[in-house]
């Protein structure tokens, strides 16, 4: 029973981290203008914008992110949406610094990154960012 305070401390510390993680997960943030060429993701830029989603087979949130993004852009043919397997594209993963999946990059029509979301994006924020593209 002398370890009960230790147990309490672990639960408090991990809960603080967990709440912070949940609040930041999926937030879309503005990023520096990093350029990604079409050859790097083996696809084509959209006429208005391109969305690159880095996924892995061991990522439970990736499918949710994919169906959300596909649903939000379904009537916008001028936006290209490309899902990239992170494990098969490690060179690009290292260059653009993907640390977890899903990570979604929003590129302008010239292929410059303007925003990114780590984790499944939140619908309201996604709609706002896509309408601003």
């Amino acid at each position, binding site marked *: 029973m002398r370890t009960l305070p230790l147990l309490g401390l672990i639960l408090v510390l991990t809960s603080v981290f967990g709440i912070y993680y949940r609040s930041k997960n999926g937030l879309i943030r503005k990023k520096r203008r990093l350029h990604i060429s079409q050859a790097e993701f083996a696809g084509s830029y959209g006429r208005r914008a391109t969305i690159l989603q880095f996924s892995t087979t*061991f990522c439970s949130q990736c499918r949710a992110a994919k169906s959300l993004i596909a649903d939000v852009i379904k009537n916008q043919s001028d936006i290209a949406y*490309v*899902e990239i397997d992170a494990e098969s594209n490690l060179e690009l993963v290292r260059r653009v610094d*993907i640390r977890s999946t899903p990570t979604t990059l929003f590129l302008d029509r010239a292929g410059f990154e303007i925003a990114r979301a780590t984790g499944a994006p939140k619908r309201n924020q996604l709609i706002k960012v896509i309408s601003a593209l």
Partner: protein
Amino acid sequence: MLTTNQSNKPVVLIDARGPRYSAAITSVVLALALITESSYVIGFQFAVFLSAVLFGLRRSIYGFIYRNLIQPRLSGPVPSEDQRAPRFAQLIGALFAFVALLGGVTGNSAVFLIATSFALGAAFLNAAFGFCLGCQIYLILVRLTKRS
């Protein structure tokens, strides 16, 4: 317009909800190990981690409990995921449990408490917040070690 740039390598898929339920059971067992400071309890948890590492998550002890007692009571579509990252997370858990077990057996209670605390923290993060620390480390490790 959605295009995919995915590989078609074969993977072993599991019910993606399973690891989180297993993490909840793991958290309770590790909390019990911490309170009782029992080498038997941490030894049991080490055996559970090891079973997941050796036989896969579906055939692990908690995987068996999940499939037979919890999964039949869940409704809705079954999300699936590749078991490599959660299996790697079980390996990390097994390492911490092994160190804790060594500490317990040799009477080094500081080692026991620190190692059990780390394992408990990681399991609780997954159970309560869906944050799998081992899975995060797995991708970073792939990034560092695998050639393109």
